[in-house]
């Protein structure tokens, strides 16, 4: 259960919501991770 970030493509980040057993539902901690990720990506 995680938010994956793949930066192998030049200038493109691939963000994957990964919690397959629950159809990629997001518990509160995962929501917090995604919120922090947006903050980081917005500053890149």
């Amino acid at each position, binding site marked *: 259960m995680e938010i994956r970030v793949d930066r192998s493509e030049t200038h493109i980040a691939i963000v994957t919501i990964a919690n397959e057993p629950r159809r990629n539902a997001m518990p509160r901690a995962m929501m917090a991770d995604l919120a922090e990720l*947006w903050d980081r990506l917005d500053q890149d």
Partner: protein
Amino acid sequence: MVLTGAGDKGFCSGADLAGDLSASPEAARVINRALLKDTPFSKPIVAAVNGDCVAGGVELLLSSDIRAAVPEARFGLPEVRWSIYPFGGATVKLAQQIGHVHAMDLLLTGRLVDAAFAERVGLVNLVVERDRLMPWALETATAIAANSPSAVQAVRTQISSAIADYAKSREALEQELGERVRTSRHFAEGVAAFREKRRPDYS
């Protein structure tokens, strides 16, 4: 960037209803930020909808810019079925994006619709076969990335700022209504029915 879900069943089904359903101001802030409900964001988001896109998944989708879905994907906002107020952005964004009647159809019936419907009403740009989904997303993101970063991010910032400003203007009422639903006698029954996989009884 490209946004997608793991596997081939789901894109995102929003908040996990098996977990914490409290709605403190801090929780609301985190959810709003996670779903990019009311904060401007400078980077374009290409959504590759690889499976079902439900509840907060739709609300996250509404914060993306260019979208494709596989034919098997289903879309829906079933919150009212479970006596939950959809306060992740659907009430303030969906009608603007797909029009009033289609938005109210999804928000009030809670039904699931297929990818062809989503394409027809403009919830996604197009439907593509699964093996073409990520290539399409990367081609689209690459085309954007070839343009001026300054200009692209300025456009994205202006449009997302306008959306965010509107969402912020509705936030006080949004939280008030969410709390009203959460403290209603229907809430416990709705959430229990969801967790017990049964039809709720609101009589």
